[in-house]
């Protein structure tokens, strides 16, 4: 039996970071994710594992601290919520451009602008399509439970180091604030200097040793021909992620006539909506993307011969639905149902939307 606790999603992010051997957290307070840094400050990991926790002067400084820390081959992370992630967008594209591994957690709240502090999923475009400038991608993982908040911290670092690319946990105020049972991960020691040299010695700026070429952590190349070659390399990396790293979950899909596509807390709501719909005799299933980039395009396409309609359920005005439509390519009707600005849809509303769109009621 592992270490099982009842914890808040945000607290679990902090605990999972300590346990997975994270070297540094750099953050700035913003609701609804401040418990992450607060938990770390209470836990004092500097005394336990040597992990560094710094409250930065801004979101911009925090993400650039992450850039500096990642440049040293250290496992570093930051967390924020929507308006703060907009400020971090500069650092995200620099991290991707310099091919640096790092973890960014976004506990999404309603927008645009200062918006609201209640949960939303309206940062999908920002996370998946860019947010910062240039042709880059983040690895984006969408937890739907407090357990996955725990599991995805280590997984994000694993993927970030595998591909030398920043990874984002795209969660929301529901998952961040709710308490659930969670089995915490085992403690892993932080990497030693020797291990870092072995794993990341070709690029980590830990001090140039005699007889080796100096290492430069940069996203700059003023020669456009070289910059294009570098962009080809990035694109090849993103294709490899699409080939190897797509993760999704299918619930009640075997006999489904209709399909919900939803991630994060919307997927939890859809699970209840399935129960309600099936009690009414409507056979509906759920495809839950776990990776938002790379997106489970093929998994959706595999359902096309079977289902008569797809409802993309999001706490946004309709962002992920664009990727569903790209996958479906007009072969079956795809509709969107969303509540936004911090409003969480009820399972009954979702069933009603399914009926209205596809069952002529």
């Amino acid at each position, binding site marked *: 039996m592992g270490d099982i606790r009842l914890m808040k999603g945000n607290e679990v992010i902090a605990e999972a970071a300590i346990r997975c051997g994270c070297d540094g957290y750099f953050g700035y307070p913003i609701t609804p994710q401040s418990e992450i840094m607060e938990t770390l400050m209470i836990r004092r990991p500097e005394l336990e594992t040597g992990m560094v926790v710094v409250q930065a002067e801004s979101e911009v*400084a925090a993400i650039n601290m992450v850039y500096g820390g990642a440049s*040293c081959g250290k496992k570093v992370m930051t967390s924020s919520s929507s308006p703060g992630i907009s400020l971090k967008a500069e650092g995200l594209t620099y991290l991707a451009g310099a091919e640096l591994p790092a973890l960014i957690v976004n506990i999404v709240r309603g927008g645009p602008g200062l918006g609201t502090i209640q949960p939303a999923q309206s940062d999908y475009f920002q996370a998946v399509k860019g947010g910062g400038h240039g042709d880059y991608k983040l690895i984006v993982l969408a937890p739907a439970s407090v357990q996955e908040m725990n599991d995805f911290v280590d997984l994000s670092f694993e993927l970030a180091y595998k591909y030398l690319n920043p990874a984002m946990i795209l969660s929301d105020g529901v998952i961040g604030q709710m308490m659930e049972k969670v089995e915490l991960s085992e403690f892993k020691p932080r990497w030693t200097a020797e291990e870092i040299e072995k794993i990341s010695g070709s690029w980590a700026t*830990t001090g*140039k040793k005699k007889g080796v070429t100096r290492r*430069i952590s940069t996203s700059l190349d003023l020669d456009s021909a070289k910059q294009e070659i570098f962009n080809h390399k990035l694109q090849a990396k993103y294709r490899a992620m699409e080939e190897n790293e797509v993760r999704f979950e299918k619930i009640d899909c075997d006999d489904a006539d209709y399909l919900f596509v939803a991630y994060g807390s919307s997927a939890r709501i859809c699970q209840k909506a399935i129960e309600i719909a099936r009690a009414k005799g409507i056979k509906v299933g759920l495809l839950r993307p776990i990776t938002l980039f790379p997106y489970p395009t093929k998994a959706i396409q595999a359902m096309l011969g079977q289902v008569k309609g797809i409802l993309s359920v999001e706490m946004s005005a309709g962002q992920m639905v664009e990727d569903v439509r790209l996958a479906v390519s007009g072969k079956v009707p795809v509709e969107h149902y969303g509540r936004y600005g911090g409003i969480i849809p009820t399972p009954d509303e979702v069933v009603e939307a399914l009926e209205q769109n596809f069952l002529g009621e």
Partner: protein
Amino acid sequence: MTATTELKNIISEENLIYSKTPVLLDNEMHYCPGCTHGVIHKVIAEVIEDMGIQEETIGVSPVGCSVLAYNYLDIDWQQAAHGRAPALATATIRLMPEKYVFTYQGDGDLASIGCAEIMHACNRGENIVVFFVNNGIYGMTGGQMAPTTLEGQVTATTPYGRDCKTTGFPMKISEMVSLLPGTRFVTRQSAETPGAVRKLKKAVKKAFANTREDKGISFIEIVSTCSSGWKQTPVQSNEWMKEHMFPYYPLGTLKDE
């Protein structure tokens, strides 16, 4: 004896009184004639060699003319987004406290877009060295006004001279950071004469020694020229700097604790 043979005879061990530090790479510098960056790079490189810390030093280069500083010093480098070098340096020294970390920043980078990052790194007293090259103008982008541009100074964005009523006043960053309890050593130097270079070198040594002793942040401003941006010859630039920059940005040490 031909001139060439004469030269060959001169280059011999017993005549060697000066050699380039190996920390300074042989790459051709992209800086304009008369630019002070090359001299400052050399001074930093020499100090790194003298102190034997080449393997332990990480530089953070800015955005601006010295963005490519990593091409000139044979150490590990991080290249920061505009103004963010102190944030990178903060994480680097926190995660590797046994290293020597410095930022190298211009006045647009440090005093304008990176004002928050430098103030807070200074306020936290991060155990790093900051080189602040102040030539009162944006060089790389083509000579626009910087926060340190003098009143009345003509730049690409103050074509009729800087009007402090609408653009604010030249910022005295060294004075500002010296007021923060987190800073240990704040000095303003220059590099236009052999004497000035010697003084600068002494300050650079002191700054890295402060890191060694875990004393906190050392801030070295170097008042410099920008012949291209100022549209003057290198000689004129040095004269202009002495006449106009030095009275407003007086040289000397503001804080040494």
